[in-house]
Structures are given as structure tokens and as C-alpha cells.
């Protein structure tokens, strides 16, 4: 988290991901702002909060795996086995 308020309230520049989505942080996507102007408008989030939401989701999903099993098998490993 940045110390200065203005730094947190200035997200990185957007890159277009698809015709309906943009991205500002790696693996984080937003609806193209022009599509959220009539019925739902976008909120301004500090950067730390955007990243907190994304990391919390990742934490939740990792927890869900641990809840159901001790270990998750890697498909990439199994594919490597098939190729050998």
C-alpha cells in the first residue's frame, strides 16, 4: 500500500483486454467503463482495496481446496508423465 492518498486513488493506466473488458492489474479485469454508465456506475476503489478483494478471493478458493482434500494433483505433472 502506498503512503500517499493520491497514489492509492490513481489506478495504473488501463489496457484493453477484450471489447467489453479492460485490465489495470495482472489477472484483474474490469468492465469497459463505457458499459457502466446508465444503470450501474463504477465506484472508485483505492488500489489496495482492489488487490485485497482479489487476494481474498484467492485465499477463499485455496481454503476450499484444503477443506475437501489434503493435496491437489497437478495436471501439468500428469501431462508431463504422458509425454515421457
Amino acid at each position, binding site marked *: 500500500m502506498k503512503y500517499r492518498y493520491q497514489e492509492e486513488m490513481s489506478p495504473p493506466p488501463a489496457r484493453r*483486454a*477484450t471489447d*467489453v*473488458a479492460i485490465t489495470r492489474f495482472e489477472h484483474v*479485469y474490469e*468492465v469497459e467503463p463505457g*458499459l*457502466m*454508465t*446508465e*444503470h*450501474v456506475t463504477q465506484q472508485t476503489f483505492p488500489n489496495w482495496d482492489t488487490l485485497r478483494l482479489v487476494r481474498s478471493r*484467492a485465499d*477463499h*478458493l*485455496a481454503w*476450499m*481446496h484444503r*477443506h*475437501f*482434500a*489434503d*493435496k*491437489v*494433483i*497437478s*495436471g*501439468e505433472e*500428469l*501431462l508431463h*508423465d*504422458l509425454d515421457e
Partner: protein
Amino acid sequence: MSVLIGDPVLDELRQILGPGHVLTGKADRLNRARVPAPFPVHRWAERMPDLVVLPASTEEVAEVLKLANRLRIPVVPRDGGTGLTDGAVPLCGGIVVDVKRINAIREIDLGNRTCTVGTGINALKLNEVLARHDLIYPDDPASYPCSLVGGRIGTSGWSLIGSRYGHSRDLVLSFDHVLPTGKVIHVGDGIGRKITKSSSGYQLKHLFMGHQGTLGIATEATLKLFPRPEAEFSPFWAFEDYDSAYRAVGALARAGVATFAGAVLFDEWKVAYLRRDDEAYIPQPSSVKALVCAALYGYEDEVRAGGRRLMRIARSHGARYLGDEISEGDWAARHDRYATPLHGRTRSGQVVPMSWHCEDASINYTGLPAVRLAWHEIADRLRRESDVFDDWGMFAYTNGATGADYLTEIDIGIWEQRLDDTAWEAWVRAKRDLAAVSLAHGGSISACHGSCREGEVDLVPEELGGGYDVMLDIKRTIDPNNIMNPGKYLLDQAYAEKS
């Protein structure tokens, strides 16, 4: 029916339950008037109960039902309130019996691998306790973190990993059940609480599962337990066309891998929706048109061996593995679909808040392609009629280990705040049409939710034929005064015939 504060009914209920467990406040009743299924918000008042009770035991439930039966007051049981066919929604006012306080773990029997619980318990919370014993109760709906065991019994629920472990009907061994008259019976295979197979007498367990609260209230259940899995494998694969994905999911389901817990087919509309409004798969090339995932659970050596076999089968059908990160993240999200905030689009592309609704059916594998096209035509008609509806695509989930039939669902986004009578009628008509397609292809109207909502319920007598007449006879016999969840499954006609 109308119950007023000070009414003798309230006094009697407070004597049974204690004054703090009889709720009459508007918020208490509003919050128990609906479920996550599309809801005619403009007609909310029609679904309001008169009061809510919170019993703590089978005996208290029995006393409440005796009172309701004596005074002919409608009763609607409510567990997690997460069902998608309105089983927990009152249509005639009356008393909502909220069973969340009946949530104790009574026994964990390590020798027989069972546990006995109050039906107000949630499987996730139960499994946190069972994990200390390396055990799991593997009933895994999309509402896993919020549905309750009693609701799973009342709806005869469907489990995401049911191809490996069975569904609620297989996992619930027996339960205490309060009949509409207040009489308490125990139903299972035979009379045994922990018996998995009996040929003694009629098999009543299935009768008292999936009745959507029309035949009474389950209060204490004995459940089958399994070893907690050592390993999980959940590969996701991409395909360039639906037909290849369809052939692949069939081959995976028919492979006979012992640790196979389920497979899911995502059609083109679903992939397009996920890229448009769910963030998922945005980085994938536009050539990705359909997806398949599978899940395996068991000991690590078994899962690795089965996993290699499924990877080989998928590859032979043109699949591209999407990598560990996507596979693991997306599978974990399948356990918890109710936590996802949702939005859809108007026809002009503007984002609007929408609630999610899936219409489900049970369809044989060979019927999936035709049902898919017919259902999307219906969804397209809805979309053309109103901006209230959005087509979010279809999933098909394996029902069992042999790949015979699939829980087939079409997800429709609904802008509930804009629903009015015209849009609601269009929705109900569409539901009826979706159900008719399922029957025309030899399927069942529902694999998972039940079929007692407006629209599809009209076709239940057609689906069940003479069996529906037996339903009417059973309802009239077990619930002579029609107090349990009146208005559901068209069962009121059982009493019209009598009069």
C-alpha cells in the same frame, strides 16, 4: 389466515417454544418470504408468512404441527432457504418453521462410519468437525456453504461430486420426520438408523425426501460418512467447438475411473457469458468455444492413475488443458456459486444487476445437443421480449458414474427490480416451455431443484402420469387438512376432489 399479536395462537406457540422463538416482526418475515430463485419483487407481499417459529427439538416441531393441524394453519418448513424451486416460500401465509436451531451433532459413530445430526446443520460446518476424524460428509451442492441438511432432505438434493459418492438420497441413511398431524416417525431402510440396505416393508425414505415440505419436517438425520480424500484433481480443458467437448465429456464419464466424482460441459453461450460478465477465461483466445472439467477424489495413487487416464482421453478428443491455476481456481469456485455477485447486459450492452436463475432438467447424454438448441431458442425469445432477461448459457453435469444422464441447466440472468406482471408471465411461459422440451426428449423436468414453481409445475402430472394420482392420494392421506406447504405441486386439487 391472520394471526394478530395477542392472539391465543401466539400465546400457545410461546408456551411451546419460549417467547424469544416466535417472531412476528416485519423484517423477520420479509427475510423468510423468498429464496434465491427469481422472485416477483412487485408481488412480495403475497409471499409473506404471518409469523416465524424457531424450534429447538423434534418435540417442539411436533407440538407446533399439532397446533397448526388443529387450527388449520398453513406451515412452511425452512432450512437454508437456498432451494431454487420455492419449496421454502409461503404461498398462503401461515407459520414458517425455521429449523436452524436444530443443528447439534448428536453422534459421530466411527465404527459404523455414520453421524447423527440436527437437520439445521450445514455440511461445511459439519465437515470441519468430521475432518478431525479424517472423515467427510460429501454432499456438495452449489450452495455448499449455506444450505442445510434438512433442506437437502426436503428437496432430495443433487451433489456436484455425486458421481463418486452419491447424492443426498444416497448419503442420508435415515431421519426423524414429523408428519403434518404432529406424529413423529423414523424413516430409513427398514427401521434401523444406520442401515444402508433393507428389504423390509415399503421403502419410505424416498417418499419423505424431495417433497418440498408438503409431507412434514425432518428434524434429525443419520448420514453416511467417507474417508476424507487425500487428493483432488480437477482438470479444465478447452475445445474449439461444442461437438468435440460433448464427445469428450461422454468419453470421460464412460471411462469407468473409480475416483471419478463428476464432469461438467460448458456450451458456447456459457463460455461467452463467462468472458463477458464473469471475468473467467478473458485471456483465452477467441477460438475457445466450449469447456469440459472433471473432478476426481480419493487416495493420491488412485487419483494420479485415474487422472492420467482422463488426461489421455481428453487429449484424444482434441482438448487443450487450461493449466493448473485455472483448473484449481475454477473448480474451487464450483462449491460456492451463491457467493458470486452477478451482472448481465441489456441488449445495448449496458451492465445491469441481475439475479441468477438456472432451470434444470435430467437429460440423457444422447439428448443433450438437441435440448441445448431448443432451450437457447426459448432463452433467445425471452431476450427479444425484454431487457429483463439475459441468456447466460448452459452447463451439463454428470448425474452418475456411468454417464447415462446429466443435470442439464440453462442459466438466465433476471433484472428483478424491473420485473412486472408482463415480464413475469413471459418468464413463467418460458419455464413451461423449457420443461416441455425436457419431456419431449425423454427427460425429467428436474434433476436437482424440484419442479413445483409456476410454469414447469403444470407439466408434472404429464411427467408422472398415474404416479401423480398416487401423489394426490398420499398427500390427502398424510396431510388430511392440507396444512403442509399448501399451494405447492398443484396438490391442493387433492382436496378439491375430496369435496
